[in-house]
């Protein structure tokens, strides 16, 4: 669709656009670093209490469904891949394909949340919730573990919801041709946010599910 004169004209035009893609990316990265430290604090808390209550943590972790955790890990890794493929497709100027990949990501994100709903639901059903009958019989270490489990997976789930909203807004603006093959930084930023959420899960999964 572009011949040489067109793209040359485009390049000259681009130089005068008031846009700072690098600044945009840098800003998002600085925010992501604060996210790393936010979850970092929780990981530190986890490490400290695990050090104090090794038996309690191992006993509590065996209540979790490893298969469910593994499925969610794969779902999230796949959603990360489809975001990247969506970016590549947009850069290759294939809007429809890009939107398809991003829909895959949204779909995976929702599957993740549905799985989480069933997981939390099963715990609640067994009486593991604040002041729940089973939780009150548990040792201090187990109570600490479940406290951290709910806070960490809950905060992570909140990030998934925000990430989905972020991707949704970007998709809408792609449809409106605001975000295009030559102006894709906002899609990349949504992708970066989604990947950091994925990375947090990469650490949560072994630490919460695989320690017994």
């Amino acid at each position: 669709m572009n011949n040489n004169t067109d793209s040359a004209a485009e390049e000259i035009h681009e130089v005068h656009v008031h846009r700072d893609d690098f600044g945009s990316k840098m800003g998002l990265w600085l925010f992501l670093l604060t996210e790393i430290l936010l979850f970092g604090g929780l990981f530190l808390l986890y490490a400290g209490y695990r050090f104090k209550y090794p038996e309690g943590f191992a006993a509590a972790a065996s209540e979790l469904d490893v298969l469910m955790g593994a499925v969610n890990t794969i779902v999230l890794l796949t959603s990360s891949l489809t975001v990247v493929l969506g970016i590549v497709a947009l850069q290759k100027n294939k809007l429809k394909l890009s939107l398809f990949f991003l829909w895959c990501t949204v779909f995976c994100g929702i599957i993740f949340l549905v799985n989480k709903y069933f997981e939390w639901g099963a715990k609640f059903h067994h009486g593991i919730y604040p002041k729940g009958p089973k939780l009150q019989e548990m040792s201090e270490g187990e109570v600490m573990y479940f406290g951290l489990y709910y806070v960490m997976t809950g905060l992570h789930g909140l990030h998934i919801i925000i990430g989905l909203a972020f991707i949704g807004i970007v998709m809408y603006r792609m449809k409106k041709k605001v975000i295009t093959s030559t102006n894709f930084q906002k899609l990349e930023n949504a992708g970066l946010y989604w990947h950091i959420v994925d990375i947090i899960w990469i650490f949560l999964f072994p630490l919460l599910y695989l320690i017994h």
Partner: protein
Amino acid sequence: MENNEHHEGEHPVNEHHGPEEGMIAHAHHPSYGVNIAVWIGLIGLTSITVAVAGINLGSLALSVALIIALVKSMFVVNFFMHVKFDSKIIKLCLGVCIVVFITMFVLTFFDLTFRY
């Protein structure tokens, strides 16, 4: 295979980042293949970490799980988030953040090991 001439036409511009050209992001050889390969690797590592958890490794289990998680996140950071191809300042910021985190961790554990 698809409109490559468009992208190749752009590349001479982003080879030398002038003060103004650097503001506008350009695609760096976008490719599906590399990312799919990384994804296959990530799925493989996930299977390994689940399989290894079934074996009783004792005190090594945590280190093995964390090393696999670190390798996985390095794949995600370098390829999916393309930090590998990003400017030095982003690498530096990420590095500083990780060093801060490790420092907090080490200091906390100095406290914990001598307290109990």
